[in-house]
């Protein structure tokens, strides 16, 4: 039982990732095909508010897989080493493009291109990884045993292309929901061709799986066949809704329908393959970690999940509706360094006093450093902690008094004179 719950958690995480980061990546790829710099920047900013949260799901999925199904984690990851490493590179580049673009006040062509191209690369690599897993990895006892190119199969390449269609579709649906004007119209027009392409890809990949996947799909089991049929039907209904909804109001409808179709498609795949997690032969049971760990994971994550969902939904709700550029923060101007603070003139002091003071303070500093390091710990247990308490206490009092003094002298007053 616990292994099925764990599997459900892993699937939920990866599913949420595909659904959420899918639109992210899709918008990224679409930004490559838009000529307007203003809109490119807009796409970037659309994503900037949510991508951290969206990307968290793949991390949760990866870690849940590791904790709950270490056999699968340890077989799959070395098996898809090259595409997965390439995906990580692309993830880094994408984050870099996105954040630096967002941080610079205007559109920067280089960052924009990096963001778009890296989005495409991430998608392709993810498709390769999914395809490689579905077409089976050489394995023994929960360890990968194949060579460096085991991931490269015709099926995995098809899968990569298929995933690009899926993400583009989600991206277009998201744009219809979030934008206005040209981008909005464009997304509405793109939707149906992309949906068609996705359906064709799904058909090819679905029937191709029979050929590519070395395992036998036991569809003669009635429960499995029913679940599979229902999931496929749900996916088709959602696709029909999305088809109808593109280019029509309400603007949120295509996106919701695409999400539904993605989720249903994933369920269909799971219904067909469970309990095999890594074809051809690694089953859920063999890949599992001990029950204690799975229970801890599922209960721990399960207790947190309502809160996580609640604040994620809240964050979504804050940024609901059409995108609007935040009121431009006017570019910061550098004030001339006029040196108005005035050079500091120390009062005259006898040289000897200064030297004596500095020597004493240096000695005191060395002594305090020694005390902090518990140098008398061998002699007495309380001397050093007491010394530290006195020193840190003095620092705290000095901080409070110093701040008060500085405030009285107006050190923290803003230029312009008025005090709040």
């Amino acid at each position, binding site marked *: 039982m616990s292994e099925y719950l764990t599997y459900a958690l892993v699937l939920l995480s990866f599913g949420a990732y595909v659904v959420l980061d899918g639109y992210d990546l899709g918008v990224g790829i679409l930004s490559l095909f838009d000529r307007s710099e203003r809109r490119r920047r807009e796409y970037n900013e659309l994503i900037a508010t949510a991508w*951290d949260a969206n*990307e*968290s799901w793949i991390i949760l999925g*990866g*870690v849940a897989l*590791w*904790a709950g199904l*270490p056999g699968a*984690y*340890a*077989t*799959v*990851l*070395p098996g898809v*080493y090259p595409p997965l490493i390439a995906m990580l590179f692309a*993830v*880094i580049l994408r*984050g*870099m493009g*996105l*954040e630096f673009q967002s941080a610079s006040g205007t559109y920067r062509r280089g960052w924009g291109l990096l963001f778009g191209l890296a989005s495409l690369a991430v998608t392709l690599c993810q498709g390769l990884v999914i395809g490689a897993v579905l077409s089976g990895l050489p394995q023994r006892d929960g*360890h990968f*045993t194949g*060579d460096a190119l085991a991931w490269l199969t015709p099926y995995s390449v098809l899968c990569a292309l298929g995933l690009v269609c899926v993400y583009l579709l989600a991206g277009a649906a998201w744009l219809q929901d979030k934008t206005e004007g040209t981008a909005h119209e464009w997304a509405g027009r793109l939707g149906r061709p992309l949906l068609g392409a996705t359906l064709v890809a799904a058909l090819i990949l679905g029937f191709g799986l029979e050929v590519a996947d070395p395992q036998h799909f036991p569809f003669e089991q009635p429960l499995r066949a029913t679940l599979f049929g229902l999931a496929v039907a749900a996916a088709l209904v959602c696709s029909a809704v999305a088809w109808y909804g593109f280019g029509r109001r309400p603007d949120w409808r295509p996106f919701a329908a695409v999400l539904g179709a993605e989720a249903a498609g994933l369920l269909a795949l799971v219904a067909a393959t469970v309990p095999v997690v890594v074809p051809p032969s690694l089953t859920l049971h063999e890949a599992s*970690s*001990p029950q*204690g*760990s799975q229970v*801890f*994971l599922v209960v*721990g*994550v399960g207790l947190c*999940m309502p809160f996580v969902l609640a*604040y994620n939904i809240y964050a979504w709700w*804050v940024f609901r509706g059409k995108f609007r550029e935040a009121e431009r*923060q006017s570019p*910061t*101007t*550098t*004030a*001339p360094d006029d040196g*108005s*603070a005035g050079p500091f003139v120390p009062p005259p002091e006898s040289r000897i006093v200064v030297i004596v003071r500095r020597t004493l303070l240096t000695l005191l*500093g060395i002594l*305090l*450093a020694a005390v*902090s390091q518990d140098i008398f710990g*061998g002699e007495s247990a309380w001397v050093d902690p007491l010394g*530290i308490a006195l020193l*840190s206490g003095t*620092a705290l009092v*000095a*901080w409070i008094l*110093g*701040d008060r003094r500085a405030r009285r002298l107006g*050190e923290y*007053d*803003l*230029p*312009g004179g008025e005090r709040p």
Partner: protein
Amino acid sequence: MASSSVVELSRWQFAITAIFHMTFPALTVGLSLLLAVAYTVYVRTGNPLYLQIFRFWKKIFAVGFGLGVVAGTVMTFEFGLNWGIYAHAVGPVIGVTIGMEVITAFFLEAGFIGIMLYGDGRVKPRTMALASWMVAAGTLLSTTWILSANSWMQDPAGYREVDGQFHVTDWWQVLLNPAFSHRFPHMLLAVLISASWFVGGISAWYLVKRRASALPFARRTLSMALGVLAILMPVQLYVGDATAVFMGGRQPAKLQAFEGNWTTDNNDYNLVVIPDTDQGKNDFRVGIPYLGAAIGHDLTGEAKVPGLLQTPPDERPNMWSAFYGFRAMYFTALAMFAAAFAGLVLRLRGRLFTSPRFLRWLVWMTPAGVIAITGGWITAESGRQPWVVYGKLRTADAVSHLTLTEAALSLTGFALLYATLLTLWIRYIIRTVKAGPEPVTDLRTAQPEGSVV
């Protein structure tokens, strides 16, 4: 099983990616607290100075956090990519711990950071403050879980071994393992301290340059940073010493390596050594007599500092990395202590903002905390070798079934990518600092509705 070069390359790759990742939390944990405090004060007093502080540090925090996220994604998958055997063996223990980190901490940060960074004008100022606190809470929780996971590898507890896999027998012992109780406070203080030097150093730069528009801003954050530092530096030295003593007891080889002795025949504190690993001796050594014994809590100077020859050859860590990692941490720590103490003295004399030499020194201290953290982690991780789970699983037995080409190409890729990224990140920080905080006049007009002003 796997060739020794694949092990070497995978170790280098892990070291590079882990060190690189670490530099971001080293700043963002403390910065998130500064942001939360600044925004809360702004909401309560309406003083635009604090909005100015929030807006400025937000710019650096946002990019640092984003880069930390992507670098962290790499870490999550690397455990399985390069260390498949390790991943399979410790998944039921460490996998679960890190899973809890993701769900409790990572999501908290990622969920609220959007509101914190882009919520201005969309949500109430109070909500912004709450979001900032949530992000800060997330970063602190994250530190806790990660230290628990790593400490378990340093000093495993609460498990039994079944067919080469670690199965948990007692979760409390796993999560609150003995090493955790020392290493967690040490690291928590370290990240707060390193962010304080970063903030303090940059603030000092504005004072050194006497940039009129930024002076109140810089004085305010400098005072906060040095206040935190003067309180925490003594505590950190004490906690650090206790950690070294404790870990030295649990992992004697690590202590022998980072003290830089082969033979147990002197009471020096070594400043420089050139170890010869094959012969088991130092080609060159400079030490201060008696100081080694004194730091080891023996003021009579009788005690000899233990040497690495006490450990069998196949269980010895590399002395180079352990020794110089530790020295980088320790010498930086002394410089930090001195600077914090000098800051305290200057504050008592009322000269904190007007001592040009001290302020210039502070500018140089900007990266001090990050350097010390890096050195400390190099000591902790390389000193644990040749084990990945101390005493239980050897690093050489933990590596995935990979070809040399795969390991070499990915290592090269990460090295190049991270070098570029680090350059861009530093350049971004410098540019942001040079541009300076936004002028207050703009902030006044752009105030969110409903604020207390």
